[in-house]
């Protein structure tokens, strides 16, 4: 049997015209025994009855009838590769096991079907892939849908992420956080683990806007009077979304410092560059000895942007 990856003729020709580089790639990328052919699911089932039944409880069972990609009757080999040699030798070395294989081998096995995940930029821009975190690190292929250790799906998802992202779990123990510990949301509400156009794999909203606006729609604008950092560097300029000891997840304990660390540029940015030149200056009548002026957002209430006031007062 041939591999079920029919080429469109033009593409096929182009692939054939590719130099030996491509052929080398095929050879080096081979993950099963040379000469192995497809044996069919029934052959696999003869020895791996339990795994086969597990697969049928899993969403991947649709492979068994997947004529589109040519996996009909070969659901096991869709991921494990041709298994005829393994069926004869019964040696683990003669079959690809994506769960144990290096990510460089297991990820392509998954990408044969999943390359078009809704990531905007393709899985390859995911830092998970760059850091060789295999799909099987998070996803179980044979198991049935998860049992019920907790009824809260958000909690299950976050706990999965926290197995590796322990720094983030620690941050969420701080008092001012998004309600992740309470199970009201999960990591994937803000991050796309499969990749994103934004840094830190953040989700996007409305095509190409920061994912924060999915819930905080009132901050989206466009405002008549924008507060530039919100647009240019995003919410992280002032907020620590994973948790902070400061109210409203601010990165400083007092709002006056939060603002004035940027709004202090008169005649000081120098060196012939524009390094840190944006940010304006505070008007001189703001006397920090007065409590009224130590809280900038007491007056500048529309600090995320205003529709009607250039100083963001209303």
């Amino acid at each position: 049997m041939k591999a079920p990856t029919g080429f469109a003729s033009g593409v096929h020709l182009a692939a054939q015209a590719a130099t030996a580089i491509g052929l080398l790639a095929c050879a080096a990328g081979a993950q099963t025994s040379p000469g192995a052919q497809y044996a069919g699911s029934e052959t696999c089932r003869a020895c791996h009855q339990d795994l086969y039944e597990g697969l049928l409880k899993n969403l991947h069972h649709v492979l068994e009838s997947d004529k589109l990609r040519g996996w009909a009757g070969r659901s096991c080999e869709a991921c494990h590769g041709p298994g005829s040699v393994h069926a004869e030798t019964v040696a683990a070395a003669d079959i690809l096991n994506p769960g144990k294989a290096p990510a460089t081998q297991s990820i392509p096995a998954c990408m044969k079907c999943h390359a078009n995940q809704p990531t905007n930029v393709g899985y390859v821009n995911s830092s998970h892939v760059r850091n060789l975190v295999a799909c099987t690190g998070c996803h179980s292929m044979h198991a049935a849908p998860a049992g019920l250790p907790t009824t809260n799906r958000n909690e299950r998802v976050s706990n999965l992420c926290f197995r590796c992202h322990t720094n983030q779990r620690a941050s969420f123990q701080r008092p001012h956080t998004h309600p992740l510990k309470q199970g009201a949301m999960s990591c994937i509400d803000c991050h796309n683990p499969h990749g994103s156009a934004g840094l830190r794999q953040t989700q996007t909203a409305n095509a190409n806007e920061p994912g924060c606006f999915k819930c905080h729609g009132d901050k989206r604008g466009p405002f008549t009077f924008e507060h530039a950092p919100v647009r240019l560097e995003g919410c992280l300029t002032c907020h620590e979304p994973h948790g902070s000891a400061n109210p409203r997840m601010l990165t400083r304990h007092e709002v006056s410092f939060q603002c004035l660390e940027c709004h202090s540029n008169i005649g000081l940015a120098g060196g012939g560059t524009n390094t840190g030149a944006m940010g304006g200056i505070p008007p001189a009548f703001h006397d920090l000895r007065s409590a009224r002026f130590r809280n900038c957002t007491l007056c500048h209430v529309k600090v995320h942007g205003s529709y009607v006031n250039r100083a963001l007062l209303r």
Partner: protein
Amino acid sequence: MTRILLAIWIGLPLLAGQDAVEATPTKQNPQPAQEAKAEAQAPETPSPIAEQKLKAQVDAGYRGIPNIGGNFDAYRSVVNYGEGPKLFGAEINFEDPKHSALNRLTVSGHGWGGEPYTSFRADAEKFRSYRLTADYRNLAYFNYLPSFANPLASPAFRSQRAFDTRMKNADVSLELWPSRRVTPYFGYQSNYWNGHGITPYVTTGNEFPVQTQIRNQTNNYRGGVQLELTRMHVTLEQGGTTFKDDQRVFTREPNAGNRPGGVLGSQTTLNDLEQAYGVRGDGLYSKGLVTASPCSWLNVYGQFLFSQPEIDVRYSENARGLFLMGGDTFYTGLDGIVTGLSRQPHTTGSATAEIRPIGRLRILESWTTDRFHNAASALLLDQLLVSGATRPLARERQVDTRLNLNYNRQQLDVLFDITPRLTVRGGHRYVWGNALTPGWGLSPTGSPSQGELKMHVGLAGVTLRPTSRAWINVDYEGSPGDRNYFRTSLQNYHMVRARGRVEVTGSLHFYSHFRWLDNQNPARGIDYKFQDIMATGGLQWMPAGGRRASIIGEYGWSSLKSDILFLLPSTLQPAPSSYRDRGHTGTLLAQISGPKLTVADMRFEVGGSLFQSGGSRPTKYYQPLVRLYLPVAKTVELFGEWRWYGYDAQTFYFLEHFRSNQLIAGLRLKI
């Protein structure tokens, strides 16, 4: 209403369970037509094994809160749990072996019964026919912290920005013919924020804390199609958004504001206020994604995203009282309107190629651009009733503003597998762009501000899997810095991240995560030094698969130092701003299975979390817990929980202390 929903929730699995019982004979004696249909379907799509047609779990009970000591507003701002009967969680999984209308249905809910965080989710699927997902969340946002922004302020200046609101999000998506060549999909998403709060009404020389009513909503409608060809995938999506913001700020009570001593010898007051925002917005967006594998050694990805939100503003303001106008002139009333329009065409594009010239070498080249030009105009009209004047003073201003951003990023990564267990990578990122912003900032004068972004970043990393039971991943990126937008932006920085995990035995795992970031901007007048270190480590011990006992424990340490010069607003002289945060975090969950009761082992859990920090805002936040599960029947389990919330802010923040004992007694029902 809440109680009715609660009753329905609790009753659902019982009703469903009844269906399951009734369905059993049908399963044993299927109707001939159904049998024939099932047989006809068998060769096409193998049936998932449905050992049990229905699985459900419901956790319901009562939360008692004997006491909440300390600052109740701080408690609500941080914890916010209430007393009473609750549906803590429920999940129902239903599989229909007949595949009539669906194959699988999952319905879950969490936090019903007056809880601050309520959610509902339903997933229904018929393989290759449709996939439907509905998600609803109702989240409380209460924030009334006395120390917000200024711990040294007297009570008169505290909590003048407060929220008692609810955020309701709904998201429904429908995919038709999933896993086929052509998969259309549709979606609707809504975000609704409403509630009450306090906000200051700001005038020259005085601010008046008044009530506000918050009400805004964003709707998103989208539809698209995924095309799956043999070597190529295409996603095309068209969507639209609508937005409205109807915030009101109002008062009918005389208010002396933050200057009770008066201004220039006169007592400024606010007697009557009505501010109304009538903001309406809409916009369309388009999305196009392509992924392709033209040959075995090449994958390419591309996207094009375009959106153009628009906002139409109708704002009115009517205020009566005595207000300072400037100098020694006062006015007694203001009537103003603002009309405006803003538009933000926003284009994003990216392309990535993954090239594998030899099997062990991967080259990733990606390019991204993101640019928007925000153009807005507003007409401001108002008239002031100036004290002593015979007729109102009318003012009119036309304002045009613009904010432009052009951002570009190009990145090259090379990954090489030295051995199947060792991969090294290196790369280079070049980020460049420019921005034009209105120059006023906090200053009413000044020309538009222009900024330039230019950074070369070096990238390196290594992934090591010495055995199948251990791995370590280390990443480094650093830049000497060139040009950036803001004083606190990444400039001359180095960042290292490392993660590792080792399975000492099948039941004992150790893992660790480390992050170090050092950023400096030595420019004159800035002198920014920033260092953030965070390290966590943990272990998971589950002997015999955790049947008798298990422990999961983690400890984290963090240190953040930031020093920068800023200008004292009153003198425009440089002064240092220093921020320190040294944190210790711990989490623990130990579970012990006790003696067997009637049908199963009782389980005892103890643990919780703690956070303690020193530095600029010393804080302690403890949440120990003890939990007990007592199985009383095969499908019924009693559980009880004690949890302590202790928040202990130190030095200037002592007035935010709170503590609370919480007891939960409940029933877990499993089908």
